């Protein structure tokens, strides 16, 4: 299951810090480095490097300290990738996803939805009555949306996430 969690970490980094975030993370640098060093090494714009590093920081996978460069007087950022926080961050994201899916399912289970036949809007039965079962956007009829299959699929997804959470300790 190690492979699966590695895959998930990659997916997570790609979503938050993009391809450049992934590349920086894959460099496996254990000590400190500056954004400038990475930009030089990879031959990419320093602003892109910074953006990706700050995204990794927001995710919890990078940290930095600032120090004034005595020669230039500029603030220099010394970065470090927190490889040891990988599992913790992954768990946090999976837990959050699980919580949000549970909220979604609860709402879907307790609400009857109608959808425009052209797929413009999805609204509750109560709102649909108010609108006379007519789409507020295109004036086409609204029809009942059967969400049972989707809710079932989300439940399966939830089970998978719970399984992953048990495996990633």
């Amino acid at each position, binding site marked *: 299951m190690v492979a699966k969690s590695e895959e*998930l970490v990659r997916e997570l980094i790609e979503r938050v810090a*993009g391809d450049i975030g992934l590349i920086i993370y894959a460099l496996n640098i254990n000590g400190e480095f500056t954004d400038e060093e990475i930009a030089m090494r990879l031959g990419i714009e320093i602003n892109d490097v910074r*953006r990706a590093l*700050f995204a990794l920081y927001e995710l919890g996978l990078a940290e930095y300290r600032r120090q004034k460069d005595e020669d230039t007087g500029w603030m220099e950022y010394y970065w470090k990738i927190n490889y040891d926080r990988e599992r913790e961050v992954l768990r946090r994201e999976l837990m*959050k996803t699980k919580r949000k*899916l549970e909220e979604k399912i609860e709402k879907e289970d307790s609400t009857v939805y109608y*959808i425009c036949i052209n797929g413009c809007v999805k609204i509750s039965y109560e709102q649909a009555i108010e609108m006379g079962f007519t789409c507020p956007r295109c004036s086409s009829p609204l029809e009942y949306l059967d969400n049972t*299959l*989707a809710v079932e699929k989300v439940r399966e997804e939830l089970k998978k996430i719970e399984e992953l959470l048990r495996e990633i300790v």
Partner: protein
Amino acid sequence: METRDQILQILEEKGSILQKDLWKELNIDSSKCSRILRKLEKEGLIRRVEVVVDGVKTFKIVPADAEIEEEGRELSLIELMETMDELAGLPPCFGCMAFECDANGCIKLEVWFLRRTSIG
């Protein structure tokens, strides 16, 4: 002038600014900037709208009373489903950096969900 007043002044002049540009413009670090912005948002002076720029999430800072063009507001659900290809796999919540969110008010999660219904 205090940083918070500078931020409000910038918003008055420009209408909106990306958070990632704001802290650079003010020459402060990103965490300080985000701290001040959270405070201003709590005070009801500004709003932070999540946006994606070059594939990376950031916030667009707007005055609290500004009309917000929510992502996809003009598009129908079907059109959104066609444009949001990335919503095929894991739920969008995985890796979402929104500070606080309502799962049932999230258009991305809605599109992800609808892909699993018969219309998806």
